[in-house]
């Protein structure tokens, strides 16, 4: 019998009586990572990786009942042994491994296979059943090594500075922002961050994560100073008034959707950098093959296309309707396909 079921509250493990990333309140929510589409407020208890805890406290409030695990650590819930393995998506992101009577299921949440220098590197886990995202499940999505993108960003910032423009990067505050801070810290340019990013950074630093120095944007920082550095703000501010008050802001969106010209133009940003925290096409395929799983459940993204392809290459796959991929950075920036409709429409 299958270890997990897809219910209208989320991914449910009946044997263990807990949910993974539920979108409605439950007794125990096992949480893959801290993005808003994967963790909701109102659960009686949370179980997550130890580095996801500061994020939940930051985002959902201090009154939560949270139990944590380290990567590789194992606990048993109602006879189901549960452990977490790095998903490489953002700091603290975990694949959830469930084992019951020799049957192993892994729920990966969101993941990427390239090491980003800040989130613990993705680790493939052997299993019988694997639940995979498919945000970028089309063969047009193939990322360049992140150093190439960082070089592009640095060149862009350099040319902005020459033209007396302020470089403003649009990046989600959890994940992309820290990755950029780390990747761009080697260039000798101060990094200014919006308070929502600064708050998370503080929480990470308290939890013992090493982050390069950044400056929290405040009203008393002169606009001329910002122009000499790089400013990072979350997508919510991308079209806001604050950016317009800067001296000739040049905006650069950091997202996998920037791979495609239509995505870049849609955002009407001055520049787009295809930097993603999700696996690209080769990444998805290599990760899935490495699990050796007999059955793949394909969630949020190009679910229909990706599962059809998997079946064609001899990997049994099925598309599943979930509510993930709705508030994540990349989908918030430009959602090309909503898995929910495909389900209803087919």
């Amino acid at each position, binding site marked *: 019998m299958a270890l997990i079921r897809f219910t209208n509250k989320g991914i449910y493990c009946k044997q263990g009586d807990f949910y993974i990333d539920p979108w409605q309140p439950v007794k125990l929510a096992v949480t893959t990572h801290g993005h808003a589409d994967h963790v909701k407020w109102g659960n009686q208890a949370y179980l997550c990786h130890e580095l996801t805890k500061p994020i939940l406290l930051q985002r959902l409030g201090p009154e939560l009942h949270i139990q944590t695990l380290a990567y590789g650590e194992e606990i048993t819930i109602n006879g189901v042994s549960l452990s977490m393995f790095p998903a490489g998506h953002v700091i603290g992101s975990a694949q959830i491994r469930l084992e019951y009577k020799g049957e192993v299921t892994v729920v990966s949440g969101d993941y990427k296979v390239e090491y980003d220098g800040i989130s613990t590197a993705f680790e493939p886990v052997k299993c019988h059943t694997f639940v995979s995202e498919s945000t970028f499940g*089309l063969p*047009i999505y193939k990322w360049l090594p992140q150093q190439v993108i960082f070089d592009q960003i640095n060149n862009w910032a350099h040319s902005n500075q020459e033209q007396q423009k302020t470089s403003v990067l649009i990046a989600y505050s959890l994940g992309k922002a820290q990755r950029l801070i780390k990747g761009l810290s080697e260039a000798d340019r101060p990094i200014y961050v919006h308070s929502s990013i600064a708050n998370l950074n503080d929480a990470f630093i308290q939890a013992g994560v090493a982050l390069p120095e950044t400056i929290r944007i405040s009203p008393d920082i002169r606009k001329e100073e910002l122009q000499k550095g790089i400013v990072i703000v979350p997508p919510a501010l991308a079209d806001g008034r604050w950016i317009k008050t800067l001296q000739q802001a040049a905006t650069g969106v950091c997202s996998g959707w920037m*791979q495609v*010209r*239509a995505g*870049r133009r*849609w955002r009407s940003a001055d520049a787009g950098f295809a930097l993603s925290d999700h696996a690209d096409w080769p990444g998805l395929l290599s990760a899935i093959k490495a699990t050796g799983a007999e059955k793949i459940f394909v969630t949020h993204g190009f679910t229909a296309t990706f599962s059809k392809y998997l079946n*064609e290459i001899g990997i049994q796959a099925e598309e599943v309707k979930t509510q993930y991929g709705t508030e994540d950075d990349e989908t918030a920036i430009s959602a090309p396909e909503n898995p929910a*409709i495909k389900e209803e429409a087919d």
Partner: protein
Amino acid sequence: MKRFTALIAQLEMSNKTNDKIAALVRYFEEAEDLDKPYVIAMFTGKRPRRPVSTSLIKEWATELSGVPAWLFAESYHSVGDLSETIALILPPPGRTTDLPLHQWIRALGDLNGQSDEVKKKFITDAWDSLDMQERFVFNKLISGNFRIGVSNKMLVNALAKQSHTESNKIMHSIMGKWKPDEISYQDLIGGAHVDTDRSWPYPFCLAYALDNEPESLGDVKDWQAEWKWDGIRGQIVKRGGELFIWSRGEELVTDQFPELHFLADELEDGTVLDGEILSVKDGKVQSFSVLQQRLNRKTISKGQLANAPVAFYGYDLLELKGMDQRGETLAIRRKQLTEVIKTIKTEGIVVISPTIEVGSWEALALLRADSRSNNSEGLMLKKLDSLYHSGRKRGDWWKWKINPYTVDTVMIYAQKGSGRRANFFTDYTFAVRDGDQLITIAKAYSGLSDQEIKEVDAFVKKNAIEKFGPVRTVKPELVFEIAFEGIAESKRHKAGLALRFPRIARWRKDKKAAEINTLEDLKQLLHSTL
């Protein structure tokens, strides 16, 4: 190639005309001289013969990418551009090359007449030596079709700035006859192959929309009223034995209208006319959609010449016997215009745009209401003592357009857009009520703000009932007011009628689907306009 690729990237990154012009100026400062005429040719639509068919290109790209054809098609649908899809889907290049742009273009030209094997080897080798951005540009070179928002005018302005030459002269020289492999950049800009001293047009005098009651303009006797024709505003310049036709966008369109070329013989040198290029059949002005078949074509077929014959309705006279007339009053210029048109021997092709003589604003308003019956967009009001101004100036010239027709409809299908809108449901199909059925009457995509598009997109994603390929059937809930310019019988449409220029006027969030118009309403309108 790398420099040109960088230019394309810069042009795509900005929506601002000034940024684009700056990028073009920098390019023409820095690029290799031999490349420049090719770039000008490309951006002005001078297309070389396509050396390889789209289907072969697609076939080779699919083969190299190792994905099944259906997955290639899905990817193409998501990207919305074949050149780009190929650039993205191919495996990463195995090597690099830095051949200059003109050599790539010449090498592509040399492929014409070669066997498919030779072509395939060349194209696939090229793909393997270019990075993603360069591949995209290379694929565009094959199709010769660059649509990156650079108008002739913008290009000309950039060239003018870079070379410190007057822009009208550059427009004339690049619209002239030349080939990128035979002319140097300097000669092209200098106009060595044409005589740019004769062609220049005057800046057009433009009108504001009338935002008040016409009575506010004073005595109707001080005004000249004429139909506001819906065609291409143009200037006909005849100097030194040569004829030039300029559009209002200051593009040289002489070649597009061979019917007017007789004027080279029949207009006196030193004459400039302002007027409207229209399609006219049996003395009746046709709708813009007829004229449209004739626009922006490199060659015009006999069929198009017969279906949409062109005439010129003269509004004004700007130059006479080589003398600038713009300082004369409209009343005087109009008299002179009448005389000039009388001297033209060929009759019926260049005519004076009639004025409307009435005694009161009310009588004029009545005539205006009937503008559609002669395919005009309303009236123009010009003060009889006005001079011919450069550009738009308030007070002397007014356009008094009729309001478009509108109909309330409900959205029933949605489809993703292309290009900029490839990832959003932006193309909608609208229906009116016919008994207890809904019947499709128009498809439209423009007229909503980005914010509204996002809202509708979210609605479509939540309320899709059925899926036919890229099309979603949605719950008939959202009501839109559709504006349109005309209505005609149509056998091709299930409704039996077709709307002209339908576009979304506004999203009627205040209305329910039960309150939309019926097919009967539209049929009544159709019969009233016949």
